[in-house]
């Protein structure tokens, strides 16, 4: 029997993988994918909880998240392309002009 605990643990694992990916990877596209992973981990827990609580609100929220994620993917990828055109790299260690 697969309970809500399993879903939530899986969601937590996926989220952590995403966080660690954001923190330690250098490639902007991979960081971007990790962010997507975090979003989807949250989606998973939303859906699981919605099912468990017999409530539609959680599922509804997932649609919003997916919409935001799609928009974010469009904007984010555009930024990455723009950065690449300027600096010929997507290594974020080289993109550090945002300091004093």
């Amino acid at each position: 029997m697969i309970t809500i605990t399993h879903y939530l643990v899986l969601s937590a694992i996926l989220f952590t993988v995403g966080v660690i990916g954001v923190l330690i990877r250098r490639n902007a596209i991979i960081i971007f994918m990790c962010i997507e992973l975090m979003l989807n981990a949250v989606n998973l827990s939303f859906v699981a909880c919605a099912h468990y609580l017999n409530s539609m609100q959680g599922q509804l929220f997932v649609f919003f998240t997916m919409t935001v994620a799609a928009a974010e993917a469009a904007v984010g990828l555009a930024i990455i392309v723009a950065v690449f055109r300027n600096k010929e790299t997507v290594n974020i260690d080289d993109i550090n002009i945002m300091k004093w």
Partner: protein
Amino acid sequence: MLDLVALILLFPLIGTAVNGLAGKRMRKETVGYIACGAIGLSFLVSILVFCGLLLLPPEGRLFEKHLFVWIESGSFRSLAALQVDPLSTVMILTVSGVGFLIHVYSIGYMHHDKGYHRYFCYLNLFTFSMLLLVLSNNFLLMFIGWEAVGLCSYLLIGFWFEKKSASNAAKKAFVVNRVGDFGFALGVMLIFLIFHSIDFTEVFSAASHGNFETGNFAITMITLLLFMGATGKSAQIPLYTWLPDAMEGPTPVSALIHAATMVTAGVYMIARCNVLYMLSPFTMTVVASIGAATALFAASIGLVQNDIKRVLAYSTISQLGYMFLACGVGAFTAGVFHLMTHAFFKALLFLGAGSVIHALSGEQDIRKMGALKSHIPTTYKTFLVGTIAIAGIPPFAGFFSKDEILLEAFVRGNFIYWSIGAIAALFTAFYMFRLLFMTFYGESRVDHHTMEHLHESPGNMTLPLIALAGLSFVGGFLGIPGASAINHFLSPVFGGHTHAEIAGTELAGHSGHHGAWLPYLMMVVSTAIAIAGIFLAYQMYIKKPDLPKKLTDRFRFIHKLLLNKYYVDEIYDALFVNPTKKISVKILWKGVDVRIIDGSVNGIARLVGGLSNVLRLLQTGYIRNYAFYIVVGCIFIVVLAVFGK
């Protein structure tokens, strides 16, 4: 008619405002007319007020005009109110009358100056301040006038502020006056402490109704502090040093400062407070001694000075010494009378000197003048009248007032006061005629270039000279011994005991063998003294022109001492100015200001900067680091939420 008194102050104030705000955009003629018109109207109203006062019975000649309540705080109350009585009437007539003539003269004298409107704005303000000073009915309002006069003198002495010497002289006048004003302010505070009021009428009636025995310590302190203010404003020892330097301003300003406004303030103040001064014999002795000392001291410096204005400046100090001598022996009327006649002839002399300087394109050294008599006849004639008046030849104005002071000094004071006054009178006659002879007689020492431009001054400059010469001639008849109009007029202010009565009783009492002929003897003696001084000057500068040179060589030390004004400026520099500067630079500037004040301000800035330097290390620019902080924060919040309870 007495109700109009506020107008006397209003007209100059309007003149100041109009010329100050819009003078730049107006034509020069308009500026001059407005300024002169303002003072002229003031003078006319003063005459009306004077007539109004004459209509009242002598003992009821006191009118107060309350304008508004100025300050009210607890038991302290100061009205903006004006007081008209014989003393203030004499003052406003002198100030506005002589002031008006000086204004008219200035139109011609300052014609080429680019600060024309600024000049007239200040000049009107100056007259306003002096009128406020003499019209106020309480000590605080008087203090406002007192300070405003100081401010205006600063502005006008430093009128040509591009000149270093002028701005220095202005600063000197301001700072020296501040020393005296400090005493004056303390005196006023002490008056409030003792009398719980600062109104003239209340203070004086409290003082005169026997609440204080003669020689009361508090009264002595008050009068001494007020006298300290008077020494500053009226240029007495030890605070006289600013006045000779004050001639750095335009010449009509010197005339205004020396004659009508400013320096007479101290004499007026003491005359006004005669009730208080009478209660303190010690202060009276101080006043008389300082007056006598100043009269002699300044006159001796005047003997050898070569700058035409400087001679006149020392003569002013000397004459003010006379006035204080008169006040110090209790002859307030004589002091005020001399103040008035002095205003006439000193304004005349300064304006005449201005006319000479004008004719010689700015030359002030009398060694480079001579034989100007025929070139500038009007100036010469009027200057001669002024010189005779100040020397004390009857029947000119100076004779009556000076003679009265000497008589009073002898009768009420003692032989020392009289002899100092007499020697100073001898000096005065000598140096004034020395000035006259060196300027107008002898052979010309004017250089060729200046000679070509030599010209008599225009009508608007000579007319005031003629008017003042007339006043210098007839002014004395107000105080003819025996039938003194001014004496009679002023007697309500200076108590029932007019000085003539006292003089009479004392004469009868202490010198039965002199009797009534003493005043006439005195007249003969003082005339003889004046003639002796003139004769001496005539011998030295007309008959034997090489004599001064011989005397100078003979008494080299004394001459040098006098020429350098007893080195008083140098002594003050060494004693007060330089130590103050040194303390200011070494301790107050380099120590307190740089270390403590700047140090604390800069220290705070440096502390913030240092902390920021540490904090900015957090800002690496790597998104990874920022994301890590967010994660740490999230974990912290989660931990807090789960385990916090």
